[in-house]
């Protein structure tokens, strides 16, 4: 009986999957690198304290541990926070431009058993620039990084959390009530927003605007037109102007047709302050990339520096590619050498020569007749398409069409020294 030790929310990655995963990571990494980003890594643990003061991540969702000294640690639940902390510690000039990318696992202790708790994220963070140009560059890079995988119908959904924030500050709700209202806004549930406003004594005009904002989404020009009419104070006008500027820049990049705007965008991460965006692909019910601007986060770590970034859920992307047949099939030619006890060194030498040429080569000692061994092995998973050879008394035999034939070379590796007289003689290494 096999015993099951699997834990809900964590998964093994088989070699075929890992092969695809590695390919994705390499392509993304190369793309980020060529855009000037440098790879960094932060520890798996963070001090629990950095998640204490603001609820960037719900505290119940943290995996907590206690260090030997009694300090509470958390398994990193988010990459951006850690990278921002690192950038603040190592780069003290607030005006410095810093571009980092990372590949890391993050951990969330979700209560639902079937939701993945270990998430592999790859993303970029761009510090030191608060201009719309920076946002547009980041969004373009997000799109570029998905184009690498030939994903069709990429769509950018753009928003700015500053608009709703400005309206919410007019409500004098406490933090909990604001959160509850935020959830309703996020669900675009107009009736519930209005009900909530009534029971919490929110000014009718403000409530009406909050409800209306959630319904303004879609084609950019139409949305932007309606945005002007909504703005009633400097904060809102500033957010609207930023949103418009980012959209205009995306148009200048030739990406205008791929953009929709949603004024009802709420933050998926608490630290977002301004531009937020998601990227969708054809036939998929979830975003492939999420990102945004977080201008106030670095100040928490002592350096007041604006920043913007995005993250790709790498395993999510891999699922997408798999389901849409965009992953290259896994194929790997293996070469297997069986050797008689006396030929151990000869087999090892031939194997090394093949490996130098990039051929995946394995050796196994031969016990008894080779035919049944090869027949059995040829049916097991890893060796289905393997080439089999047998080395006996210095002679190399290839298994093909159910029989052994003597061969003089494997993939260009000469197995016998050329004989001046022309007839090859077995070369023996003693």
């Amino acid at each position, binding site marked *: 009986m096999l015993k099951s030790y699997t834990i809900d929310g964590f998964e093994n990655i088989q070699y075929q999957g890992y092969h695809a995963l590695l390919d994705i990571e390499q392509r993304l990494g190369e793309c980020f690198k060529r855009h000037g980003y440098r790879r960094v890594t932060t520890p798996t643990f963070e001090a629990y304290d950095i998640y204490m003061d603001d609820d960037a991540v719900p505290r119940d969702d943290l995996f907590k541990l206690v260090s030997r000294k009694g300090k509470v640690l958390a398994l990193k639940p988010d990459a951006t926070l850690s990278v921002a902390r690192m950038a603040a510690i190592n780069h003290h000039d607030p005006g410095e431009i810093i571009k980092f990318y990372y590949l890391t696992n993050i951990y969330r202790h979700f209560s639902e058993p079937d939701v993945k708790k270990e998430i592999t994220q790859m993303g970029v963070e761009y510090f030191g620039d608060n201009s719309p140009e920076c946002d547009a560059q980041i969004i373009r890079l997000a799109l570029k990084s998905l184009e690498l995988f030939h994903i069709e*119908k990429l769509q950018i959904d753009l928003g700015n959390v500053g608009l709703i924030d400005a309206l919410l500050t007019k409500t004098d709700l406490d933090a909990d009530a604001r959160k509850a209202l935020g959830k309703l806004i996020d669900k*675009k*549930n107009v*009736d519930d927003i209005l009900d909530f406003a009534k029971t919490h004594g929110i000014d009718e005009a403000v409530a009406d605007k909050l409800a209306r904002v959630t319904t303004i989404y*879609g084609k950019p020009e139409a949305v932007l037109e309606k945005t002007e009419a909504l703005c009633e104070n400097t904060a809102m006008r500033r957010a609207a102007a930023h949103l418009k500027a980012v959209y205009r820049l995306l148009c200048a990049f030739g990406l205008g047709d791929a953009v*929709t705007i*949603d004024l009802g965008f709420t933050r998926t991460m608490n630290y977002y302050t301004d531009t937020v965006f998601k990227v969708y692909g054809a036939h998929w*019910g*979830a*975003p492939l990339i999420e990102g945004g601007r977080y201008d106030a986060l670095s100040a928490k770590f002592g350096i007041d520096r604006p920043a913007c970034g995005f993250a790709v859920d790498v395993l999510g992307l891999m699922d997408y590619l798999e389901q849409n047949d965009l992953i290259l099939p896994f194929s790997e030619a293996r070469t297997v050498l069986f050797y008689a006890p006396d030929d151990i060194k000869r087999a090892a030498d031939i194997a090394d020569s093949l490996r130098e040429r990039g051929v995946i080569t394995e050796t196994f000692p031969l016990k008894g007749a080779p035919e049944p061994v090869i027949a059995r092995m040829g049916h097991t998973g890893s060796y289905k398409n393997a080439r089999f050879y047998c080395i006996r008394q210095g002679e190399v035999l290839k298994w093909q069409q159910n029989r052994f034939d003597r061969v003089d070379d494997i993939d260009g590796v000469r197995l016998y020294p050329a004989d001046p007289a022309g007839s090859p003689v077995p070369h023996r290494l003693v």
Partner: protein
Amino acid sequence: MNIKMALAKGRVADKALETLTAMGYVFSDYSPKSRKLVFTDDTETLSFFLVKSPDVGTYVEKGAADIGIVGRDVLVEHPADVYELLNLDIGKCDMCVAGFPGTKIVYNKKITVGTKYPRIAKHYFDTIDQPADFITIGGSVELAPILGLCDCIVDIVESGNTLKENGLVVLKKILPISSRLIVNRVSLKTKSDDIDPIIERFRAANV
């Protein structure tokens, strides 16, 4: 493009289909007895399928369905990451605490509550600071207090007839329920040309 719609089997689906028919959609291949799983309207713009109510949110959240209709009770009990665009005028009822007449729900000792909705029930008793044990039951919740399994129940009450026939009464209404039109977060944006008209028709039918 064909928009896929998940409907919660039973009362909500019956009402939703009435509404769809009133809106002008014709599903000639549909009959309640049919063994088919997916039904497409004659203009091939909208398909629907019937699933158990807690699954509606799942289908829509994951994008297997673009839109869905399901009761608020189910969404509160089994939250889904979707847009809840409209509160529909169908399937109206109340989430209630019910029991024998005179049963006290605020009591100086712990009470036992039978329900299909443990999350909603727990949230309610937590807010009134009444200690309670919860027993999750799959169906025929009215039976539980009669057989002495619990002191009271938390369930949806539409007409109240089932309660009355079993000698039970509503002790407290805790949440008004109606059906919700829910939409997948990505579909709303990527299939807006096809989805918007459907939503508009629901909005118009709702007033």
